[in-house]
Structures are given as structure tokens and as C-alpha cells.
């Protein structure tokens, strides 16, 4: 019997129990009401991927050249926000006034074979970057586990992947061009306009709109990724060694289970072969097992853990191998909401253990696996990794289930460990609290921001909350 069949049979047992007179499961799916309704012929809303943010801007622009971008900024009205792929969970994009879409500013501008650097238009989606860079013999050294975002959006929010020797996407930026509301195009790097550069490497779109980005890449390479089911405590007890053993290492702890899933990724060796493939719907299978078992009085949660552990035990590892840009990302079709904080790297194991204990102790209806990653420290003013290596821990809830109350139970744990929230994910911190998390450069950043946007026209309601008016 394979694992899926085992889970399905176990699910059937849960359903049988339910029909035997026990009360229903405790997490009721919400109606999938659209966050913004649309009727043909009416103004079209913008809605993010997670469908928890929306707006209907009065003016929309989709520049197809850098000149068109600077002109659009110069003539823009009201609050101006840029949008890439719309993958942020936090309300960084919504504006009622002017929205500038970067969809058409996509492509490879130039490359330098000697330096292994490439310049891309900021609207280039990451799924397009892999083949583009490959065609000139280059590859990103590291890449997030999904490739839907634009590179401009990834930089704006310090999007990251995993690997103790790899920084966030922002840390690979060597130069960028920043289009401002005045219609200027500012070139910046460590040498040219260095203060604007350090602010623009992670700015949440509050300085202007980045039009071009030059990335430090490396020669194209192949990777092999190995996924396994393991005991979480064993992995956490040995986490430093596990990270040192691999180019990239991450964990997916499963609430209510002692089993976790690990992914170790290394440079491919001759003869490596893929075994297995993604099933983007797998978390829905886990959800059905959780829903069918976890509510059963006294034994439900342990039954769920037993089913998962048994289903996952004894199976061989799953392997994916190929060009790096094909191995790093994975298909993501089950929509969810996400909160992520980065705590100091050393605090990672204690923090994730406390989160899992809280979920269990409070019987929180969460079965979506957490994600646990490490990222190298950097010197980018508002990067979550500024001044220290970080352990990024993500908490998820299915897109049709209530999430705010659950995240509210978890968020204080991150605060206790000195966590910094991911700018593009859900959190509740305001400027006064965030300033304390970035003591070194918070004021430096805002001096640059006020210089470039003295009227605060790039600040929507959310940015006013996180940065202060």
C-alpha cells in the first residue's frame, strides 16, 4: 500500500467515526467569498495571490519602457504603489489612487560574462529569469522555493531562500536604477549613491520604483534535492551539522506530529537521477486526514500523528535533479496565508519548538506544515538579516480558513525571540515596534526616504503604519 492510499484509508476510518455519532470537526471552512467582487464592465479590482488584499485604483499604468516608467511616476496622482506578481500577503500594494504594474518591464538588459553579473528589468518574473540567465551561462546562486514573484518585488521585500552561506535576494544586488516621483532615474551601488543603495536594497517600494537590477550570479549549475521524512527532534538537535553538511537545508515541521520533512540540496553529481515528483495538492490530503481525526475526543491528535508517522515512515527519499532554476522552485497551487518572522539563527530551534508546543497545548486548528530556513546575515538597512544570520520560520493557514486569531496566538512567540517580520507577509507590528528591531539604520533609512519622497506619496495606509507618518 502506498502512502497516499494509506492516508486515504485512514481518512475513511475518520469519516466512519464521524458517522458513528461523534460531533463534527472543529475547523469549518469559510465560504470562499472573493475579497473584491467583480462584475464585467465595472472597474476591475486588483487582488493579491492569497486573496486577502485588494484595491480598485483610480489610475493604472503599465509602462513598457523605463522612459514610460519615469513619465508615469512624474504624472502620477495621489498615493502611488508599484505591483509585480502580487505575491505579498501584507498590504504593501493596495492604493485607491495610482497603481503602476511592472508586468511589461521584463527582460534581460545586459550581462557581463567575466563578472558573472546580469542586469534585468525589475518586472521580470523569477520563473523567466532562470532560462534567461541560463542562456548566457549564468544562474542565481540561490532562489526561493517558488518562482512566481518579480525580481523587483523580491528585492523590495528581501525575499530569501535557505542556506547558511547564502543571503537574501537583496544581498545579490550589485547595482540598481531607482525611478523617483520627480521623474529622475538614480543609479546606485556600493560606490555610487551608496546611502540610497543601502536603503533601496530593501525598501518596500517606499523610495520610488526600481527599474533595473544588476545581480551577482554564478556560472550555471545543476542541483540535486533530496526530501526525506525524519524525526523533528533528532533534526533540531543536530541542526548545525545538518546545515553544514549541505549547500541548502530546510525543515517543514508538521503541527501535532513528531515527524518533519527535510530537504537537503547540493550540487548535482554525475549519475544523479530524479525519483518522484511534486504533488501540489498533497497538503490538502493532510488536511483531510487532520479534519477527519483531530476532533475525536482524547485520541484525535495522537491518532493523526500516528497516521502521518506511519504513512511517512519507511519510504525511500525523493530526489529531484536538474538545472538549478528548475530544482529550486516548486509548483504552488493551494492558496494559503502566511506569517513569517526571522529570529537570530541560534534561537531557531527553541522558537519553532515553542510554536509547535503552543499549537498543541492550545489545540489550535492548524495542520499546514511550518517552514524553517536559515539565511546569512547582511548589511542592508531594512533587511530582516541585517547584522545577524537569521532563522526564518513561517506559519501558514489554508486560504479558506480563519487565520488572524491563529496567527495572533503565535506572533508573540516570535517577539519573545527578537523576531523581525517578513515585510511581505502578515504581521501586526507598527513603526514604534519595528524601529526597535532595526536600531542601527532605521533613522538612516527614513532620512533617505523623506529626501526622495518628502510628501509621503509612496506610502499607503500600511506603509504609514509600519514606517510612521
Amino acid at each position: 500500500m502506498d502512502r497516499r492510499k494509506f492516508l486515504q484509508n485512514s481518512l475513511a476510518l475518520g469519516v466512519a467515526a464521524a458517522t458513528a455519532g461523534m460531533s463534527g470537526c472543529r475547523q469549518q471552512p469559510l465560504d470562499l467569498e472573493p475579497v473584491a467582487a467583480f462584475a464585467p464592465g465595472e472597474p476591475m479590482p486588483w487582488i493579491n495571490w492569497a486573496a486577502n488584499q485588494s484595491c480598485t485604483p483610480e489610475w493604472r499604468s503599465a509602462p513598457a519602457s523605463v522612459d514610460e516608467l519615469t513619465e508615469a511616476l512624474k504624472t502620477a496622482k495621489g498615493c502611488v504603489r508599484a505591483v509585480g506578481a502580487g505575491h505579498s500577503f501584507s498590504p504593501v500594494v493596495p492604493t485607491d489612487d495610482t497603481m503602476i504594474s511592472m508586468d511589461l518591464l521584463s527582460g534581460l538588459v545586459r550581462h557581463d560574462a567575466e563578472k558573472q553579473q546580469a542586469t534585468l528589468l525589475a518586472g521580470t518574473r523569477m520563473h523567466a529569469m532562470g532560462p534567461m540567465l541560463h542562456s548566457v551561462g549564468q544562474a542565481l546562486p540561490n532562489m526561493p522555493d517558488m518562482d512566481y514573484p518579480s525580481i523587483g518585488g523580491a528585492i523590495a521585500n528581501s525575499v530569501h531562500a535557505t542556506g547558511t552561506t547564502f543571503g537574501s535576494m537583496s544581498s545579490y544586488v550589485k547595482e540598481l536604477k531607482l525611478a523617483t516621483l520627480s521623474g529622475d532615474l538614480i543609479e546606485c551601488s556600493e560606490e555610487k549613491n551608496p546611502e540610497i543603495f543601502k536603503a533601496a536594497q530593501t525598501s518596500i517600494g517606499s523610495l520610488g520604483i526600481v527599474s533595473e537590477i544588476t545581480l551577482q550570479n554564478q556560472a550555471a549549475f545543476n542541483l540535486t534535492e533530496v526530501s526525506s521524512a525524519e524525526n523533528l527532534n533528532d533534526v533540531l538537535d543536530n541542526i548545525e551539522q545538518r546545515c553544514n553538511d549541505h549547500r541548502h537545508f530546510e525543515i517543514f515541521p508538521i503541527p501535532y506530529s513528531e515527524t518533519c520533512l527535510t530537504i537537503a540540496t547540493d550540487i548535482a553529481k554525475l549519475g544523479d537521477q530524479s525519483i518522484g515528483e511534486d504533488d501540489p495538492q498533497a497538503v490538502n490530503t493532510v488536511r483531510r486526514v487532520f479534519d477527519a481525526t483531530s476532533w475525536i475526543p482524547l485520541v484525535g491528535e495522537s491518532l493523526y500523528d500516528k497516521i502521518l508517522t506511519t504513512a511517512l515512515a519507511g519510504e525511500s527519499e525523493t530526489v529531484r535533479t536538474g538545472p538549478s532554476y528548475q530544482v529550486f522552485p516548486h509548483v504552488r497551487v493551494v492558496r494559503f496565508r502566511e506569517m513569517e518572522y526571522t529570529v537570530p539563527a541560534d534561537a531557531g530551534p527553541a522558537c519553532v519548538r515553542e510554536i509547535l508546543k503552543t499549537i498543541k497545548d492550545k489545540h489550535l486548528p492548524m495542520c499546514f506544515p511550518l517552514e524553517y530556513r536559515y539565511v546569512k546575515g547582511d548589511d542592508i538597512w531594512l533587511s530582516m538579516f541585517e547584522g545577524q544570520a537569521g532563522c526564518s520560520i513561517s506559519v501558514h493557514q489554508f486560504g479558506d480558513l480563519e487565520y488572524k486569531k491563529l496567527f495572533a496566538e503565535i506572533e508573540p512567540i516570535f517577539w519573545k525571540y527578537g523576531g523581525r517580520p517578513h515585510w511581505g507577509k502578515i504581521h501586526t507590528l507598527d513603526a514604534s515596534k519595528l524601529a526597535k528591531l532595526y536600531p542601527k539604520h532605521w533613522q538612516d533609512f527614513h532620512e533617505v526616504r523623506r529626501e526622495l519622497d518628502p510628501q509621503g506619496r509612496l506610502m499607503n495606509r500600511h506603509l504609514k503604519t509600519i514606517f510612521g507618518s
Partner: protein
Amino acid sequence: MNRLLSHTLSPSNWRPLPQWAVPRRIVLLCIASALGFSAPLTAQPDARQMSLFVNNCLQCHTRPETGAPVIGVAEDWKTIASQGEEAILVNVVQGIKGMPPLGYCSACSEEDLRVMLRFIVGLPSKSGDK
């Protein structure tokens, strides 16, 4: 992150990673179609719309593993086509199941989306199409 569970929970029907050769072939088919090699009644996106189509729609609609209907596979689109253009448009804008709102395309106008959905679903073109 779904991949973790997917790896361990779906050992059947394993196959190698999808290769970019397939999307490239499909992109060429799209371009050929746009240039007039397809049935005359099918919508024809202009160059700008085709750029948006390639950047947004094709990232899922060329990959069977996403569960999205695949461009060029008529069977995948039958049920969708039967809903009619207006209902499809509403689903595209609001998102449905794994389909993200606006199909990721924040630059698309209602007319852009209409042309693209006619093109990909195989609905008849309207007078406004190129």
C-alpha cells in the same frame, strides 16, 4: 512548501522534471497562432497582450502538474468553455481554486483578459480582437 509533503505522499506516477522544451514549443504555437496560422475565428492577441500572456498565463497553463488546464489540450477546456465568456472572466479576475486573481496579470485590462481567455479557451473572437 507543498513540495515536502508532495514528495513523501505521492510516490506513484513518478516522472522526470518537466523540461522547458515543452513550454517553448507551446510558446511557438501561440506565436504561430497569433500570426494567423490558427483557425480564423480564434481571438488573436496583439504583441503587448501576447507578452502578458507568455509572462503570466503560460507559467501554469503549460504545466500539467499544476492542475491547470493546458493550452492546446481541447479536452481540458470543454467544461470551462461551456460556462461562457462572462462567467470565465469573473473567475479569472477574482481567482478560482488554484487560479490566482487576474491570472497574476496586474497590467491586464478587462479587454486584455477577454482577448486572452478567448485565445486560450478557444472561444470565438469578437469584433474588437485583432
